[in-house]
């Protein structure tokens, strides 16, 4: 029942807002819808923890410890982003950058986007997973070009073309997977169902599976933003409205990585582990190193944090590539803390760019002096995302590095050098923005910074003490990933 609620709420929200999106109370409605989804997700999580994985809707939807944690995370961040977008969108409307028609589009697409993401996470049918992922891309393309500026159009166009082409490869991979599965499970519907595939993954045909994994990795890898395929990500995350950048950076990348990990689990059965693990580690390491060196040349703040997302996705892919319970645990923890921190940073960046009227880092100065909440939020968020210890990002990076030193010691120097370079680049640019004489003006609508500090508090908590139920929840998921 909860699954119906989790999926139904955002869909209903999308429809309602499609009709009444331009009304005054639309942002509140959207926030309320997201809150409903969050509550449903919480109930679902409790249910799954209580009595283990379950399927529903004649096995089309499947819930296990791995995706239920992502569902809860997605619902929570979607809710906080909705809260943040209330004042943000009103200020944008106040600045005449969006009219009410576009607001209607924005709110309905936002709810549709969260529906698509939840569907991707929950769908047991690999084909439906692809369709939902494509749906998520479609729903965000129009949002990226919401402001109709040449740059946002260019970003949206590239985002759409590159992601559609990427996901098309994923479709071919799904077809090959289905082809291999059909030989074992026979024709009919359940050859695409992940649960069946999972049981029978031992006897699947190795050559087909390796080909399928390549297509799936390239396909969903484009959505994750791994380096050779990352070019759309900085433009898309920088040009769209900030709530969209927050959700894209925070959640969509996780969902894409979820899809890659799902296919890795299947492929591991057939081939011995180092094939898929090796590929993912290679891509992950390449992303971390290249993204780190991109950072120091950035002028636009959201573009810089987009590159930082590429770097963190690289770390996660590397962690999942390494495999083993500790690395998987680290990967999951990194997914959580990265989403929370990155969305918190985008909230503060949104308010900061509105306060200073530009996203160009050279002209944002002295945030702490003008509005301490935004200034301190950005400072602490940046320090958290850079992996400074009291925060949770350091915990997962510590686990990733220590397991890497344990198994693949040659990779650690690359990781550490790029972490150092990233630290120098990002902090070098953020510090003058936070400290010094201010250039920010008073804003019309008071900034909603409660979500920022809630996120950072959770990340700080995860840094020092991971509550036991969360630990064995991650452990189950990590064991599941293998």
């Amino acid at each position, binding site marked *: 029942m909860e699954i119906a609620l989790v999926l139904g709420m955002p869909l209903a929200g999308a429809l309602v807002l499609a009709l009444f999106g331009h009304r005054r109370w639309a942002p509140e409605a959207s926030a309320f819808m997201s809150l409903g989804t969050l509550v449903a997700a919480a109930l679902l999580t409790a249910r799954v923890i209580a009595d283990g994985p379950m399927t529903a809707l004649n096995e089309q939807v499947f819930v296990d410890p791995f995706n239920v944690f992502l569902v809860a995370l997605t619902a929570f961040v979607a809710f906080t982003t909705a809260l943040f977008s209330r004042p943000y969108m009103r200020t944008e409307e106040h600045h005449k950058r969006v009219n009410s028609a576009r607001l209607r589009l924005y709110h309905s697409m936002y709810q549709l986007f969260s529906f698509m993401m939840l569907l991707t996470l929950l769908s047991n049918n690999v084909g439906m997973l692809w369709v939902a992922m494509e749906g998520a891309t479609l729903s965000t393309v129009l949002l990226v070009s919401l402001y109709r500026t040449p740059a946002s159009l260019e970003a949206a166009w590239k985002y759409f073309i590159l992601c559609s082409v990427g996901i098309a490869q994923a479709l071919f991979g799904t077809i090959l997977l289905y082809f291999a599965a059909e030989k074992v499970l026979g024709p009919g519907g359940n050859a695409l169902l992940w649960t069946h595939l999972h049981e029978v993954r031992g006897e699947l045909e190795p050559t087909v599976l390796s080909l399928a994994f390549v*297509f799936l990795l390239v396909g969903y890898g484009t959505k994750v933003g791994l380096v050779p395929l990352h070019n759309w990500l900085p433009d898309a995350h920088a040009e769209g409205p900030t709530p969209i950048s927050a959700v894209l950076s925070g959640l969509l990348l996780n969902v894409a990585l979820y899809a890659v990990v799902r296919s890795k689990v299947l492929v591991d059965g057939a081939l011995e582990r180092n094939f898929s693990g090796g590929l993912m580690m290679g891509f992950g390491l390449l992303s971390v190193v290249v993204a780190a060196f991109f950072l120091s040349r950035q002028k636009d703040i959201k573009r810089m944090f987009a590159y930082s997302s590429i770097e963190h996705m690289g770390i996660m892919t590397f962690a999942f590539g390494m495999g083993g319970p500790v690395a998987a645990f680290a990967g999951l923890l990194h997914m959580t803390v990265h989403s929370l921190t990155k969305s918190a940073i985008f909230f503060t960046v949104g308010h900061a760019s509105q306060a200073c009227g530009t996203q160009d880092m050279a002209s944002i100065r002295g945030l702490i002096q003008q509005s301490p909440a935004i200034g301190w939020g950005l400072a602490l968020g940046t320090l958290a995302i850079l992996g400074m*210890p009291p925060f949770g990002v350091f915990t997962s990076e510590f686990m990733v590095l220590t397991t890497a030193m344990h198994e693949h010691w040659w990779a650690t120097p690359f990781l*550490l050098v790029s972490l150092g370079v990233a*630290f120098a680049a990002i902090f070098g640019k953020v510090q003058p923005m936070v*400290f010094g004489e201010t250039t920010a003006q008073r804003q019309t609508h008071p900034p909603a910074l409660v979500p920022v500090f809630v996120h950072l508090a959770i990340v700080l908590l995860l840094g*020092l*003490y991971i509550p036991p139920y969360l*630990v064995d929840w991650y452990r189950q998921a990590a064991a599941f990933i293998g």
Partner: protein
Amino acid sequence: MLTASLLAALAWLAIGLAGLIPAGNSALARRVLFPLGAAVGLVLAAVGAQAAWLPPATMVLPLGLPDLPFHLRIDPLAGFFLLLLGGVGAGISVYGHGYWRSETAGRLGLICLQYHVFLAAMAFVILADDAYLFMVAWETMALASYFLVTTDHRVPAIRSAGFLYLLIAHIGAIAILLCFGVLHGGHGDYSFAALRAAELTPFWANVAFVLAFIGFGAKAGMIPLHAWLPEAHPAAPSPVSALMSGVMIKTAIYGMVRVIYDLIGAVRWEWGVVVLLIGAGTTLFGVLFALMQHDLKRLLAYHSVENIGIILLGLGMSMVFFGFGHPAAGALGLIAALYHTLNHAVFKGLLFLGAGSILHSTGLRDLNHMGGLARTMPATAFHFLVGALAISALPPLNGFVSEWLTFQTALQAPLLENGIVRSLLPLFAATLALAGALTAMCFVKVYGVAFLGQPRGKAEISHDAGLSERLGLAWLSAGCLVLGLFPAAMLHMLNQVGASLTGHGLSADALESNWLWLVPTQPAQASYSPLIFLVVVLVVVLVTIRLVRFFYHGRVRRADPWDCGFPEQTSRMQDTADAFGQPIGLVFGPLYQMKRHLPAPEDGAPKYSIKVEDRHWGWVYLPVARLAEFVSEKVGLLQRGRISIYLLYSFLTLIALLVFVR
């Protein structure tokens, strides 16, 4: 014992958080919290002193990673450093209470929080017994001190100093993390007990040593990685720079000793020679650059670099002796190094607090504008004099004791068989002597220019330090005196620390000599009694005064100083700080990158200024920055903006993978 120190650290955290309560213009933080912090510091010092004599105790907290919870451990080494942290921290907190009384409410709460989180983080660094808690505490310490350094962040120089500081601290932390990775030797457990148990092949032991040396050296302010220290310490408010210079750098020394002596265990003599070379370089570099400074706090920061060099010399010698299998001499070297760590913490803290009082009352940091402060600030002048004499390693005070012990270690050189090292050791002792004498010259310059003679700048009214400031200064100068006059007690304690770490203490008859004499090896070989020094000199002074008054008279008249016939003596005729450093500039010229601005003959307001640059910027820092810039420029080509190029990238990746798979 361990629970007490844990409670003390948690108390500091609580005090820090309490500072945030904005009740009554943060009256709580203004009146109560800092003295409370000082009290907690004293408790910690007492616990530390006691722990030095007891066997190690361990404890596991439920916090931290699921399979690596926080391990805590207190052994004599940790006890000693807790004593250092608590003692010096208490003095500085009392001083801070007075110094920050006039701070605005909002900032005071913030400073109180960051200050006490800083102290607590240092305590946890010392207590940590597993890699994770150590790293968390290490970087929280760096973070808290970064925010303290950038309290008044409106000044661009302070911002860049803060950034440089946090960057080098982070790079150091990365090296330390890598070192722990190398140390754990392959079975995935990162608690220090496991790291100790893991035996390493010689190659990996060398790699671990190099990484630990670079990592902790970056935080201590060693030669190539020191550039942040002369920038960050002056930028911070004075109590914070005292805490950073006095105590934080010592946590780096603690880390170095813990990793090299405890975790790696088998010390090799080649490491000792490396540490000696870098230590000598650091010492000379630090003192020579200090002599050319005219900003008081920057001068003191360079002296911190110098004293770290002296500590490294002691450590290096002890490693050489341990490496060659002479544990007694090695233990003496370790004791000399640890003793100097404590001494430096005490007198550097005192000097920075003194500089803080000057800054607080006259608002001056530039020596060329100071002068004649002894008359208007007698208390600060006296305490600053005690600190200056201590740092110049003059006999009755504590600076001399640790240098004397280091000399005695160097004099054990004949024990060594290896010819080269044996003759090198005394040369290092010579550099130590040169550094000591140069420090004396530097502090004559500082004290003479700042406190004595006529006021150079516009003589605005300068009131002496407040009561609590004076209390803090008095506590630290008392520390200097006690550590200087009764070294034997401290020698026994440090011997305990050395024995617990390396299993070897000093020779038997060095220990059973009574409290009056300081005997490092045997009485015949060397002994020194500071108390007799002081008593005899005092007696002779009093007797002579009495005799002169008795036989002759005590009449005295005040008059203008001898002006050699020149009518009016202006205060500009006195030596300025740069003038005093001029012989050094001549003797050690090529070491500096000097930019001299000489006034032109027709210049209306002739002004002479000299700017001394640090060559390391050109050798180490700028090339690294240029390399990173070059690589990121090359990487930038990946994102040229054309969509067809991007499509080509994904196409080629697909084809490459397909080829690879088949």
